[in-house]
């Protein structure tokens, strides 16, 4: 480092951010020089997005300080940060899709003439707009295109142009390439290089380690909401990043009661493709009496795959077998009738009718068995509800309680309960302990362990590394829709999982 020491554009020091029940950031520090591209790397839930949102003023930290241009700042919101020169480019883009590119570039800060008449100064805006588009490498003719008609990559460039129009000195990009094609990604790199040369700094969150190597001057690694280390440009390598992302002692939250036995395959998926899914076909099998863990980073296509098997997405090719017999699944009812059930990722949206009672939810998918000529039999229904509440130890004053008023853990038990009453053959769990407090987590782990011990085939999708390593008999790892590897208990460790999840090969 021969450069004379200059004062950094941004210093974040000792940042902590507490959410109910979770310490998302714990004493994290970060600095960014002028014209520097810093990549933020870490596992799901390591605190990357939270840190970015603190810097961009979306969240206010509980402790620590942010120093911007040598002055301590305390942004009250993203607008405040934007005025100061920090712009967050969102994962879900924040453009008004129905308006033109020009309108979007100046939305909310339109240049006007005529005093209180507030007439739009179209000529002046066009000129400024043209120069902004030029900086991100878009042709001037794009000014009049409707944003909706642009592909994702170009929308992103429009958003960057808008940030430049606000004289942004620091651009924060959260997974900017997740929905881009290779060509669009290359184009974005060029723009990033250009901005860097012009003195704009960039904070860049990415799951794709190859990209980090391509465009970052420095990589900062977060782990469990803390600084895990940093790598300078020439130190960045896939292995070095993974080593920093992992490297933690796993607490034994769950002593397993089972020993892995290789049962017969219950669910077999062969060369499966589904509508709007990845190009790669997926094959896997889930065996009786095992927990098959499925790992992968956000966007790897795990949830989509499980939804396809559950009949929520149309299959385009491939085969699903149950106990060796091919079955046809066109809608969820087909899967349920075959004995395949799904505990969805978003419990509140897909798993439960929140406004209705615990009992209503427990009965809902079981009404076919609780009724005679379509009339629900109250005695049978009450019995099922009572049994489920007892077996799963759902803490509720009564079956008539609205399920939305229960704690996250008890809500999740209701979702388990509504399916277990059917004695399923395959249980698909998508992030089974998301939003569940620690005490209830252990209960759910014990339950999953018991269910597998009883011979159920459990397919568990999870981003929680402890859960994955603690409960799984085997682990399948997905990366961008493709199975990149399978690990058995002997080869299973966090580093191996991260290697596969980031697109590397098992070493």
């Amino acid at each position, binding site marked *: 480092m021969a450069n004379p020491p200059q004062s950094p554009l941004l210093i974040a020091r000792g940042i902590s951010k507490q959410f109910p029940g979770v310490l998302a950031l714990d004493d994290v520090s970060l600095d960014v020089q002028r014209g520097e591209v810093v990549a933020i790397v870490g596992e799901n839930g390591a605190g990357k997005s939270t840190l970015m949102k603190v810097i961009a003023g979306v969240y206010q930290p509980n402790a620590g300080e942010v120093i911007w241009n040598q002055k301590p700042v305390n942004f009250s919101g993203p607008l405040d940060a934007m005025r100061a020169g920090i712009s967050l480019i969102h994962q879900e883009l924040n453009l008004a899709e129905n308006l033109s590119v020009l309108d979007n570039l100046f939305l909310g800060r339109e240049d006007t003439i005529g005093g209180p008449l507030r007439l739009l100064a179209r000529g002046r805006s066009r000129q400024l707009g043209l120069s902004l588009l030029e900086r991100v490498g878009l042709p001037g003719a794009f000014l009049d295109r409707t944003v909706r008609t642009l592909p994702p990559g170009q929308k992103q460039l429009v958003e960057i142009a808008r940030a430049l129009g606000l004289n942004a000195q620091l651009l924060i990009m959260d997974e900017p390439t997740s929905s881009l094609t290779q060509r669009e990604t290359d184009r974005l790199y060029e723009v990033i290089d250009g901005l860097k040369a012009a003195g704009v700094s960039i904070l860049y969150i990415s799951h794709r380690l190859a990209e980090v190597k391509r465009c970052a001057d420095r990589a900062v690694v977060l782990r469990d909401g803390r600084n895990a280390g940093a790598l300078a440009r020439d130190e960045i390598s896939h292995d070095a990043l993974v080593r920093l992302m992992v490297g933690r002692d796993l607490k034994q939250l769950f002593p397993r009661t089972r020993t892995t036995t290789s049962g017969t395959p219950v669910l077999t998926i062969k060369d499966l493709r589904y509508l709007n899914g990845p190009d790669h076909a997926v094959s896997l099998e889930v065996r009786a009496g095992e927990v098959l863990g499925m790992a992968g980073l956000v966007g790897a296509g795990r949830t989509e795959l499980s939804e396809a098997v559950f009949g929520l997405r149309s299959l385009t090719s491939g085969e699903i077998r149950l106990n060796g017999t091919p079955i046809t699944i066109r809608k969820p009812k087909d899967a349920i009738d075959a004995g395949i059930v799904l505990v969805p990722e978003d419990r509140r*949206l897909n798993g*439960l*009718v929140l*406004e209705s009672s615990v009992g209503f939810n427990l*009965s809902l998918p079981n009404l076919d068995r609780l009724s005679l000529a379509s009339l*629900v039999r109250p005695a049978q229904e009450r019995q099922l509800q009572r049994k489920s509440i007892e077996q799963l130890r759902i803490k509720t004053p009564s079956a008539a309680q609205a399920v939305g008023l229960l704690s996250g853990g008890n809500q999740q038990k209701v979702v388990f309960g509504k399916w277990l009453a059917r004695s399923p053959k395959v249980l698909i769990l998508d992030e089974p302990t998301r939003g569940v407090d620690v005490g209830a987590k252990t209960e759910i782990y014990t339950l999953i362990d018991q269910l597998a011990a009883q011979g159920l085939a459990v397919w568990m999708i999870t981003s929680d590394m402890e859960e994955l390593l603690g409960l799984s008999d085997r682990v399948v790892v997905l990366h961008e829709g493709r199975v990149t590897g399978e690990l058995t208990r002997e080869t299973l460790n966090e580093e191996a999982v991260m290697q596969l999840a980031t697109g590397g090969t098992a070493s």
Partner: protein
Amino acid sequence: MKKNLIRLAGVTMLLMLLFTALGTSGPTALDRSNLYEVFNRHGALGVITLGAALLIVTGNIDLSVGSVVGFSAILFGVLMETGIDLQFRSLGINIVSGPIAPIPALILTLMGGVVIGLVHGLLVTRLRLQAFLVTLCGMFIYRGFARQLTAKNTGLVQVRELHPEFSSSIDFLRQWLVGKAPNGAQEFPMQLVVLLILALILGIVLHRTVYGRYWYAIGYNEQAARYAGINVERQKVMVFVICSTLASFAGVLLLLFAGSANPSDAGTSLELYAITAAVLGGCSLRGGEGLMIGFVLGALVQPVINNLMIFWNIPSSAEPWVIGLILLVGTIVDELLRRRNARK
């Protein structure tokens, strides 16, 4: 459930208030003949309210109800008067049936309602059109159909003149469906009995069968219902069919009760009265809420107000704003109660 009961208590109190007001408005207000009048109107409005309310429970809406009532009343009359006369020579269509006896005509009219409901349901579920738009278009289309069927009034008097052999069936239907004697005298508010029988059947469906459960689940959270393996589309079509068929039946009742119907105004605005009644009876337009008994009570509000206004010598032109105001006040009270509950 608790919210449902609060709403029920609300509409019950409103009705008690209205009846007390009615009782003090004149010596004849609570006479049998006046109450018959109120309950007949209640029955007629109630029949369409049940269907509209079930649709609202599933989170949908039907704006075509009034036009379906009008179209069905006209269709029923025209079928008896002249029968089907569809001739499009260029297309090779030539259906001429001749006059149809009252009971088969009634069944054909109801089948028309079934077809309308099916069309609505399929457009909403298969093409994913919005129920609001589909039924708004329907509102114009069925009114147009009614006016195409006949330019002038259709009525039982003409039918009897043209086809004396239908008279006994007409008398039978009038007696058992609307409680009128052959000479036109009101003997009993049979429309209320018809409503109560329908409400009992649909109440069992809503509160005791698998279907009712599915409808509530779909109304509250369609996604969760789908993830629970429910065929959401089929259930929705079913409820659209129930709603339109009940509206058709209400059209039949209208012709039998009034004796004649005019194609341009029979049934107009009834969809709005039905939606109002459903909301007063406990429905939330967001779906998922309401009890059958609430729908029956909700449908009683407008007939009582209408009657009250006659006794108070308020011109009937004021009726729309009075109904609107009561609903608005009800909505405000409901919202305030909800906020207070949310704070607790």
